[in-house]
């Protein structure tokens, strides 16, 4: 019998990125096949191709041994392939049943809906799943776990033979996870092939039959879950060579403390986090997506309010109730989403650099001293080697690396002594990455204190003087520079063992 699904030599490029390189993947009926890899390895892209969201540039997909082209979500559904996306794709204002059958409502010749059939059918699916959810409830009123169950019910309603789950447990607590696993196990028993994307080693061991690891858009290998040690899988995930020179860790003994964080907490996202940051230090934050690193940065920057804990800046207790407070204290936050949150793309380089320091460049009537601002902008363009024809160039026309430098200039102009970089090189090509690294190291050498949040381990290893690792909102350890990748990964996947404690 042929495999349920065979993907052969799939290629996919997006502008500027080669997302998939000749990837092979097979799914058998009645197996749970885990798909693993670091963020950006290409897992989600591969599965979006299988579910018709993207079209491959090259390669073939066989379903039951027959070549198929999957032109869109509807074609995938017709072949019995359903996907549960990482971000829940539900219509919050519609009811549970309306969501499940969207696009396939039973209706008469006038388009009048049969609401009773809708609710009864949804009820039947939930009964089969042994889940209690009211089909008439509005999705906006459900918990995330219940919404997840609605997504699964929707997938099942297609009579799916292949079910793709993209990080389905990211928002679930231990009890909900075990309910989900029970459903997955039942589906496997009924002959459904399940692709399971997750970062969590313990889950993979618990439910999967085979594991496929991807890295940098390519297939690393497929192994049987039962007889492959976790260490082996981790080394497959991170196995890339680090060609860059390791950081020279300065002797920071006796350096004053720039930032002291104590017991900082916010809901489940950040739980009891304490650490110190010294003057001149680069502290890397490693962890998987959703580990709480960005949430921690937002607390330090005053973008969110903590439930508890304290922060001291330069040895003095600080109250940070808003980003404006943080900026006054010399803390700058360079968001991972610089296009939306860091830059005014349609404005020129000069205006962007001066944006947060307008008070300094305007008189009491609010008139801007363009000449002075221009001189400062020119200085930074030279100092940070920003490649732009002039300070009057619109920022949207610069490359990603140079845009990032403009953001850095903006914060330097505000005299920030503590800079938090959140994914500083996301979407930046390899050459420009090295430049950003040199820049960050130069800033530290000049006495700035720096936090680098990155999902790319090589980046953390390349930059950090110390490496903090987070998992599920907790700081699971602080390691010295050049710690073993396996060690970091182990801390990053170290879930709480006490079941239900997270609820």
């Amino acid at each position, binding site marked *: 019998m042929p495999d349920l699904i065979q993907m052969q030599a799939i290629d996919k490029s997006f502008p500027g990125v080669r997302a998939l390189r000749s990837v092979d993947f097979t799914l058998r009926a009645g197996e749970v096949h885990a798909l693993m890899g670091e963020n950006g390895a290409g897992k989600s892209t591969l599965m979006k191709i299988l579910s018709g969201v993207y079209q491959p540039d090259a390669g073939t997909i066989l379903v039951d041994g027959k070549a198929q082209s999957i032109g869109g979500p509807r074609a995938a559904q017709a072949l019995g392939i359903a996907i549960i996306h990482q971000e829940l794709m539900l219509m919050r204002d519609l009811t549970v049943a309306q969501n499940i059958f969207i696009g396939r409502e039973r*209706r008469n010749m006038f388009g009048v809906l049969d609401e009773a059939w809708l609710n009864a059918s949804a009820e039947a699916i939930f009964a089969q799943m042994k889940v209690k959810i009211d089909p008439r409830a509005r999705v906006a009123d459900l918990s995330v776990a219940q919404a997840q169950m609605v997504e699964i019910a929707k997938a099942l309603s297609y009579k799916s033979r292949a079910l793709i789950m993209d990080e389905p447990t990211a928002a679930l607590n231990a009890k909900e996870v075990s309910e989900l696993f029970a459903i997955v196990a039942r589906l496997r028993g009924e002959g459904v092939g399940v692709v399971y994307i997750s970062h969590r080693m313990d889950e993979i061991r618990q439910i999967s039959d085979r594991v496929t690891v991807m890295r940098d858009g390519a297939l690393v290998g497929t192994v049987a879950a039962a007889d492959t040690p976790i260490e082996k899988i981790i080394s497959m995930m991170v196995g890339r060579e680090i060609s860059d020179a390791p950081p020279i860790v300065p002797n920071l003994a006796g350096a004053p403390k720039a930032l002291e964080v104590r017991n900082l907490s916010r809901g489940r996202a950040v739980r009891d986090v304490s650490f110190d940051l010294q003057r001149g230090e680069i502290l890397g934050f490693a962890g998987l997506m959703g580990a709480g690193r960005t949430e921690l940065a937002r607390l330090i920057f005053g973008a969110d309010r903590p439930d508890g804990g304290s922060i001291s800046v330069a040895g003095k207790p600080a109250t940070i109730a808003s980003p404006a407070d943080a900026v006054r204290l010399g803390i700058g936050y360079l968001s991972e989403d610089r296009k939306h949150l860091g830059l005014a793309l349609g404005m020129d380089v000069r205006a962007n650099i001066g944006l947060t320091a307008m008070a300094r460049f305007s008189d009491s009537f609010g008139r801007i001293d363009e000449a002075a601002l221009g001189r400062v902008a020119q200085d930074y363009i030279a100092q940070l080697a920003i490649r732009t024809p002039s300070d009057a160039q619109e920022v949207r026309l610069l490359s990603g690396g140079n845009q990032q430098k403009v953001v850095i200039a903006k914060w330097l102009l505000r005299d920030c002594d503590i800079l938090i970089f959140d994914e500083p090189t996301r979407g930046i090509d390899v050459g420009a990455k090295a430049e950003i690294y040199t820049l960050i190291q130069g800033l530290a050498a000049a006495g700035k204190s720096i936090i680098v949040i990155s999902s790319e381990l090589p980046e953390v290893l390349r930059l950090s003087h110390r490496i903090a690792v987070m998992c599920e909102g907790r700081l699971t350890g602080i390691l010295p520079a050049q710690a073993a990748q396996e060690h970091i990964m182990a801390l990053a996947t170290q879930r709480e063992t006490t079941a239900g404690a997270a609820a």
Partner: protein
Amino acid sequence: MTSQDAAEKPKSKDLSGAGQKLLAFASLIALIVAFSLLSENFRTVTNMMNILQATSVIGLLAVSATIVIITGGIDLSVGTAMTFTAVTAGMLLTWLGLPIAVGVIGAILMGALTGLASGAFITKMRIPPFIATLGMMLVLKGLSLILTGTKPIYFNDSPGFTSIAQGSVIGALLPAFPVPNGVLILFIVAAAVAYILNRTVLGRYTYALGSNEEAARLSGVNVDAWKMAIYALAGAVTGIAGVVLAARLNSAQPALGQGYELEAIAAVVIGGTSLAGGRGTILGTLIGALIMSVMTNGLRILSVAPEWQIVATGAIIIGAVYADSLRKK
């Protein structure tokens, strides 16, 4: 990360605009009671009929606007599209001398066509609704003026046309309630659209698009085709408004129309429909339209200067949305 945030957020109980509708309805009753106490000229049957008559056109436009706004879009062209359909009726009836039924159906079809055009600009050419319908608003205004040579078209050759709005079928049966036909049409259209929104596939997708268009697309819904159909439906309702307006004025006035769209949108908003899309009801919109005409009528009867009536209308819009945001906290 975002999903975790969502998990932690305390769940806000939202009764899908029911609270806002109740609030709006209570405000309407309060207004009517207040004006009735202040003026005995207000609390006459004739005046009530005046209020209803004044609500018919703007109410129909507001129903049209509601459909589009629930998808998360906006239609700025309803006012001038209404005029364009009235002109269409005028050309068919007065210039070509065709039967009244042809003029009415032609106007409604023309309305649907303008809606379809807006929908095509939005889906096929990827122009944001605000811009696409702003363009349509000006194009249709200009075309109305060009086609008529800027002069009104009168319906004097089509006796009976005016009774579409001014006659009273109900009055013939129940002399005590001379509800004008225009008002009857408003209620029938409102009921039909409410049925479509709540009971048919078209309506389901109207809410689905406003709630999460990407999710609808990934579920295999042909988003572009449905969106065009939704705009066409809204356009057809606009066409009905055009017919009622023409019948009420016994003429198609090409210069009229601009400004109606904002009144219609105001009625929609007062009625609790979210400009963000996904939520809204026709009943709420009707109440919103009535609040606006009761205000205008009541203030006029109390001899408040027209300038102040405009200020009051603006204040009501801001107050209604503020009350809604307070309620949601």
